């Protein structure tokens, strides 16, 4: 059983991503300080989504590893999404 090849990610990539993440954090804080009504949550979650995608893809190596891992992670996120959706079918229409 062969072990997979390891991709070594350079320090600068990590630092770049870190910078990006920090910027996104600041952006999301800034954006939510202005009152945008219901949009606030959407934007905040959208940015959180991007941030988590970055963490998953680079820090957690999903981009470089066997695609199976990415498949599993996305699958689970979808699963939780569907569960929340179905639960909301109850609460939205009560």
């Amino acid at each position, binding site marked *: *059983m062969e072990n997979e090849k*390891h991709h070594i990610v350079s320090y600068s990539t990590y630092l770049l991503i870190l910078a990006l993440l*920090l910027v996104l954090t600041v952006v999301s804080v800034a954006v*939510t300080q202005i009152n945008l009504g219901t949009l*606030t949550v959407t934007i905040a*979650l959208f940015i959180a989504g991007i941030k988590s995608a970055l963490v*998953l893809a680079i820090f957690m190596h999903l981009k470089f590893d066997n695609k199976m891992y990415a498949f*599993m992670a996305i699958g689970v996120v979808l699963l*939780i999404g569907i569960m*929340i959706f179905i639960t909301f079918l109850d609460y939205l229409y009560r």
Partner: protein
Amino acid sequence: METHRDDTASKIGMWLFLLTEMLLFGGLFIVYSIYRYKNQEAFHQAAHELDVVVGTVNTAILLISSATVAMSISAIQLKNKKFALFLLGTTIVLGLVFLVNKYFEWGIKIQHHIYPGSEVMAQRGQGDILFFGLYYFMTGLHALHIIIGLVFIAVVFARIWNDKISHDNFALHENAGLYWHLVDLIWIFLFPLFYLIT
């Protein structure tokens, strides 16, 4: 019985475990989203009481610590033991700082009698009770994961120190990293959900 090392197996195992963790918090996110939907106004108001600055600082701390763990793996692959140790040490320190911040944040809230079951809470609306209940429960569970992650990283630190982990045998290190990133990932969502929905 002869044991052979299968790094891929342990990595799959780790990932599967992370998936269960995601669902653990996934359950909480369901609860959160329902109660937020039912008590929009109260959640909105209650979120104002959390300190955005502390939250932001803690977010930054976790993000940096995540980057240092990730880099430490590259360092070990590049056979740079010292640098790897340094990066991991930084991670541990940052993790502790996060916990200290959390401690003070909770401490202040508790001083103001904002905790489940307190008189002050009983007087406030039900939305507030739920908000702070979820706040304590979710950040508490998250803090527990931080502690577990710190122990995990400390073990890796010790093993690198003793040369048990090296450039051709770093599966454990990688797994500790994955775990730490997951903790970070969860915080990425907790942060806007509790601090930013004002």
